[in-house]
C-alpha cells in the first residue's frame, strides 16, 4: 500500500472508532485547524518537545504546565496504525504518555510518514528494545458498564482529535 492509502485507511478506521480526523497539507494548515480547535479551550498543555509541537503556536495565555489541570492536551504523538485506527504514544525521548489521558480533550498530531499499515509493522520497529510505555489509543475513553449503554469519557478523554500532518 502506498502512503496515501495507508493514511486514508488510518483516518477511516480512527473515525469509525469515534475520533475526529483531519489531514493537513502542511504545518500552516495544521496551525489553522489547531486555532479553530483551541478557540474555546480553557487551558492547554503542550509538552513542546517534538519538532511539530515546537513549530505550532499555542496561545501563551492559555498554556498550562501541569497536564493534570489542563482541559486540552496538544501533542505530537509517535505515530499511528492504519489497520486498527490507533494513534501510538510512546515514552521514548522523555514523552509524558499519560498527559494525553488526563485532560478531557486529546489533540494528537500524527506525523504522516509514521503511519504504519499493521500492528506487526509497528512492533517490528523496536524489536526487543521496546520503550518503557507504548500505548495504542483507539477512539475516546468509553464504557458500557451501566446497562450496556455506551458512555464516552470515563477516566480518559471524551474527545480525541487527530491531525495528520507531513
Amino acid at each position, binding site marked *: 500500500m502506498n502512503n496515501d492509502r495507508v493514511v486514508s485507511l488510518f483516518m477511516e*478506521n480512527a473515525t*469509525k*472508532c469515534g475520533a475526529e480526523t483531519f489531514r493537513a497539507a502542511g504545518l500552516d494548515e495544521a496551525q489553522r485547524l489547531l486555532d479553530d480547535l483551541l478557540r474555546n479551550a480553557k487551558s492547554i498543555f503542550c509538552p513542546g518537545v517534538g519538532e511539530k509541537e515546537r513549530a505550532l503556536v499555542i496561545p501563551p495565555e492559555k498554556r498550562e504546565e501541569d497536564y*493534570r489541570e489542563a482541559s486540552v492536551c496538544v501533542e505530537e504523538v509517535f505515530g499511528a496504525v492504519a489497520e*486498527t*485506527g*490507533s494513534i501510538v504514544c510512546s*515514552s521514548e525521548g*522523555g*514523552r*509524558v*504518555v*499519560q498527559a494525553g*489521558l*488526563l485532560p478531557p480533550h486529546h489533540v494528537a498530531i500524527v506525523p504522516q510518514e509514521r503511519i504504519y499499515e*499493521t*500492528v*506487526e509493522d509497528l*512492533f*517490528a520497529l*523496536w*524489536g*526487543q528494545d*521496546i*520503550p*518503557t*510505555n*507504548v*500505548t*495504542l*489509543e*483507539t*477512539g*475516546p*475513553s*468509553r*464504557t*458500557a*458498564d*451501566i*446497562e*450496556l*449503554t455506551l*458512555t464516552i*469519557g*470515563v*477516566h*480518559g*478523554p471524551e474527545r480525541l482529535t487527530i491531525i495528520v500532518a507531513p
Partner: protein
Amino acid sequence: MSSSREAITFRANVQKALRDPMLREAIKRATDTFVTKRTEGIASLPMEEWREKASTIRMKVLDNLPQYVEQFCASAERAGAKVYQAVDAESARRTVAGILEDRGVKKVVKAKSMVTEEIHLNPCLQERGIDVLETDLGEYIVQLAAEAPSHILAPAIHKTREQIGKLFAEKLGVDYSDDPTVLTRVARNVLRTEFLTADAGITGANFAVADTGSLVIFTNEGNGRMVTTVPRLHVAVLTIEKLLPSVTDLPSFVRLLPRSATGQMLSSYVSVITGPRKPGDFTGADELHIVLLDNGRWEILKGEYREILKCIRCSACLNVCPVYRAIGGHAYDSTYPGPMGIVLTALLEGMERAHPVLDATTLCGACVDACPVKVPLVRLLCRLREASVEEGFAPLLEKRGMSAYGAVVSSPVMFAFGQTLARIFWPFAQKLSGYGPMSRIPRPVARAFRRRML
C-alpha cells in the same frame, strides 16, 4: 465466593436466578448485545486462520512454559522490574501486602483483574488497613454494593440503572439520577481524586511477554493507564499462563481479544509496559513489582485438562452459552463463570466443591465455536463429568438409576419387557406430569425396531 470445601449449591442458585425477572432481562440484554457485536465485528475477517494461529501460539506457550517463565523473569528484571514467584493465593497475598506495607502505602487504586479476585486480595489488604479502590466502572459499582462481579468483562451487568442510581445517591451522597452519562461522570470525578492521591496501583495483565518482559493491559475506560502511570508504585499480579513468547506474537491477540470480547476492532487503550520509569523517562511508575502466580497452574499443565490454560479470558464462551445466558454469573458461585469457568473452578477448587456446576452445560458446543484460541471446552467438560462420576460425586438417585438402566439394557428379555412397560405406562406418565419434563418424552412406538427386525 466461599472458600470452603462444601459443594456449590448450584441448583438452589439457579432457582433463585430464574425467579428474578430483572436479572434475567439484564443478562439476556447484555449477552445478546455482546454476541451481536461479536458477529458483526468478525464478519468478513479470516477468523479461522487467526484462531488457528493464536491457538498454535498458546500451545507453544504451554509446551514450553518453564522456559518462558524463566525468560520472562530475566527480561522483566533486566527492564528494571522486580519479579516474585508465588506458589499459591496465600503467598501472593502476603507478597503484595509486604510490598505495600514496606512502602507505607495507605491507598491503592486497582484496575480490573480476575486473578486478584481469585486470590481474594482486596479483603486481605483492607484487613491490614489499606484502602483498596476498584476503578473499572463496573467493578467500582460492584464494590460499592459489596457484591461479586457477575461477568468477567462487564462485572455489573446484573444491575439496572435505577439500582446504580440509588446506590450512588446512598453511598456517595449525590443526587439521584438514572442517566448512565450522569452516573459515569459522578464516578469519573470521585475516582479522579483517588487516582491522584493513591500511593500505589494494582493491576493484572492480559498478557506478559517473555522476550521483552512487558506487561500488556487492555482497557476501554483508561483506568488501566491511570493506575500504571499516575501512582509512583505499580504492582502487577498475574498467573503464569498469561505469557506469550515474543512481542511479535502480540498482534494476533490485539486482533482477536477485543473482537471476541466486545466485538470492537480494538479496545480504546492497549498499553505495553516494560519495566518502571528509567532515567530520562517521564512515564511510568518509579517502581514496578510483578507477582507471578502459580495457584494450581503447574498441576493443571501436567494433566489432561491443560488446554484450559490457553484461555485468554475474552468471555465469548460465556456470552454464547445457553446456560450462562439464562442464569448469569452469580449462580456459579465462583470467580470464573460460564463454560471456561466451570472447567477452571473444578480444577482450581476441586471436584468436591465444583461437581454440581458440571451440570451447567448443554454440551451444545457453541463455546467451542466462539473461542478465539480453540479451547476444546466440550471435551474438557465431558471428561470432567466422567471424572466426577468416577470419583463418586454422582447423586445417589442417578447412580441407582444408571445401574438399573445398565442391568436392563444388557439383557434382551428385560429390555423387551421394559419397552412393553413403557408403552403401557406412557399415557399415565403424561397425565401425571402435566407440563413437566415427562411431557416431552416422545410416545413409544407400537412395534419396537428390534421386533420389526426379528
